[in-house]
């Protein structure tokens, strides 16, 4: 019934699969040629510049602007500026999925039957007629022949009937499931992607050092997203190689809820913070103009125990800060290639004469005032750019990937090989028949059968 249904036939056909795959392969190119996710005026300029590069010289301006205008309209009409989530691209993916589902339902029952079929039922003539079947005389009896086959890895069963005795063994029959595992793995990956799309989010949060932020902004559409906690940035720093290339960007991040610290971690590129399914990635950074972080540490003795007290301050350029009896601030800044190298720092404790001097950026320096030693660090203040993402679909996507690799291995490298050994009991003089079939590598398999026969014949009593 299914077979005669034209809709079923359409969706189960490999023609459709080829057409869809070709369509996907070709249309996917578009998004690599047209930049994605830009504003309308960007496309106007983009198309204008692209076409203009073909026409050097004057006189084409009107044509160029007309072209740029219609190309931009066309782009927006077909969502080419966001084509991988456009209705038509998603439709292709839906079509592929339907195709896979129907194709699987259509073929799987047959494959399952093939895996489980009773191979002793085969008619002797059809065994003897198999490609590569060998008719031979053995000097040993049937059971010894079976033992030789066993010894060469063919373990199976014997069925004794009145007319014939038959031995059957098979290998790799589950390999027939490989193709199905591959096809289903694609559906599993798609479901994972769908779950991530429906229930996850991807957002960006900019957190200046020593401040907290409660809102992240989605990467698509820039919608505000309230987080259940504050993200606090304790520190942001860049480490450099000797040649000046950045080696690592790192941020110390705390999640804080109702004044309570939930977790604190130093994150870096390739080393995010994970908290209850939400992940915080080091994505970007920005200096906060004219703003600095000053860190004081002082060793104090409290009832014989040594302790270090550390305090952080946000200092604006040339704005004095008061703390207990102390006041301090930043007088001047030395920059090299837009990077702050040194800050001129002043520091006054009570009525003592103030201390003044250049400090290397982000390097702790010991400053002694009035007989007391302080460790002072002055650094450019940064805002760390975090990607805040939650994707509950990832485990399913990974499961799909694993299934695909296992399935591909089974589909490509496991061959369902079957052998039959047949003896005609009505005519003992007739030769034995060793026949087999393989779902792959058929020619080498016929050689394997011949080898087996030679091994049997080499056995003499």
């Amino acid at each position, binding site marked *: 019934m299914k077979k005669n249904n034209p809709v079923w036939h359409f969706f189960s056909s*490999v023609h459709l*699969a*080829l057409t869809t*795959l*070709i369509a*996907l*392969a070709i249309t*996917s*190119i578009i*998004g*690599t*040629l047209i930049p*994605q996710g830009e504003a309308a005026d960007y496309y106007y300029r983009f198309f204008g510049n692209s076409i203009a590069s073909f026409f050097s010289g004057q006189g084409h301006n009107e044509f160029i602007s007309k072209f740029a205008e219609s190309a931009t309209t066309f782009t927006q009409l077909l969502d080419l500026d966001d084509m*991988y989530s456009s209705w038509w691209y998603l439709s292709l993916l839906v079509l592929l999925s339907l195709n896979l589902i129907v194709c699987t339902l259509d073929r799987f029952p047959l494959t399952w039957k093939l895996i489980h079929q009773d191979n002793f039922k085969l008619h002797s003539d059809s065994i003897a007629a198999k490609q590569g079947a060998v008719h031979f005389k053995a000097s040993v009896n049937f059971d010894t022949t079976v033992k030789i086959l066993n010894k060469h890895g063919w373990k199976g069963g014997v069925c004794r009937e009145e007319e014939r005795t038959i031995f059957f063994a098979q290998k790799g029959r589950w390999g027939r499931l490989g193709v199905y595992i591959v096809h289903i793995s694609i559906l599993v990956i798609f479901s994972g*992607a769908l779950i991530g799309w429906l229930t996850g989010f*991807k957002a960006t949060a900019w957190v200046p050092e020593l401040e907290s932020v409660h809102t992240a902004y989605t990467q698509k559409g820039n919608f505000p997203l309230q987080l259940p906690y504050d993200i606090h940035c304790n520190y942001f720093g860049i480490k450099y*190689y*000797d*040649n000046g*290339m*950045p*080696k*690592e*960007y790192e941020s110390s991040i705390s999640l804080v809820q109702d004044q309570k610290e939930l977790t604190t971690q130093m994150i*870096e*590129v*390739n080393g*995010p913070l994970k908290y209850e399914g939400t*992940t915080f*990635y*080091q*994505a970007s950074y920005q200096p906060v103009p004219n703003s600095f972080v000053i860190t004081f540490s002082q060793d104090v003795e409290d009832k014989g125990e040594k302790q270090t007290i550390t305090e952080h301050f946000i200092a604006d350029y040339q704005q004095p800060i008061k703390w207990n009896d102390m006041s301090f601030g930043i007088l001047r800044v030395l920059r090299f290639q837009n990077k702050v190298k040194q800050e001129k720092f002043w520091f006054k404790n009570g009525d003592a004469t103030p201390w003044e001097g250049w400090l290397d950026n982000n390097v702790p320096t010991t400053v002694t005032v009035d007989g007391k030693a302080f460790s002072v660090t002055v650094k450019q203040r940064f805002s760390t750019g975090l*990607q805040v*993402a939650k*994707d509950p679909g*990832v485990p399913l*996507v*990974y499961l799909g*990937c694993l299934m*695909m*690799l296992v399935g*591909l*291995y089974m589909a*490509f490298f496991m061959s369902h090989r079957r052998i039959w050994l047949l003896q005609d009991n009505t005519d003992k003089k007739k030769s034995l028949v060793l026949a087999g079939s393989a779902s792959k590598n058929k020619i080498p398999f016929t050689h394997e059968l011949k080898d087996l026969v030679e091994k049997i014949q080499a056995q003499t009593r």
Partner: protein
Amino acid sequence: MDSSTLIGISTFTFLFATLLYGINLMYNKLGRIATTTTAIALLIQTTGIVLRWIESYQIGIGHAPLTNMYESIVFFAWTIVLLQLLVEWRFKTRVSGTLNLALATIALAWASNSGSVQMAISPLIPALQSNWLVSHVITCFIGYAAFAMAAAFGLLYLLRSKGILTDRLPELNILDELNHKTMVFGFIWLTAGIITGSVWANSAWGTYWSWDSKEVWSLITWFFYAIILHARFTRGWSGMRIATLSMAGLAVVMFTYFGVNFWLSGLHSYGAS
């Protein structure tokens, strides 16, 4: 001796082996010598790669030599030659040697002499500092090399069916089979390459797929070979059509490898330097 000297020596030895394979293909002579020369050259190149690894530690930026365009080409050549030896061992035929060694030689010569490929060992930018980088590069390049191999068998099929070298090349159906086998091998590794790339992207940026141009082109390549496999398996295509498609496939692979870096922009454009 430093790593670039060794890689230079291996390049010349590959060139020599290309000629030997050529003689073997034409006159059925010197086959063993061609294989031995190739094995020695591969050993020299392996030493060179390991040495480059050690050198990167000596200058204090230690990382596996798989991180820029130059290093990737060296590894690509290495993989092709290794696959050539594996195919010889597994399928007992040397016919693809000339084409594969020529490709390895050209790739190495271009990488060492083209001004657009930087040879110096450079430190890793933060985004590349991940263990997934190594598994990603290795899996992708085994895939690429296998597709190059498939294309070589495709070309040999074409030659033989045009009546060239008929007495020296294997039967058409055997060439077709070899083409299919190497393509299937490449398909698995390309799949693994796309997967390791996604896992890495997810651990570094929180997105396993961001439709960056390199990702899209690797997906296009993957579709391309999936189409060939289906056409073969379910529509019974073989022979000339598959041979031609496997050569076109190599063009798609090469665009994914180089073209994207030079003409399109995206996350992976570091490779252009």
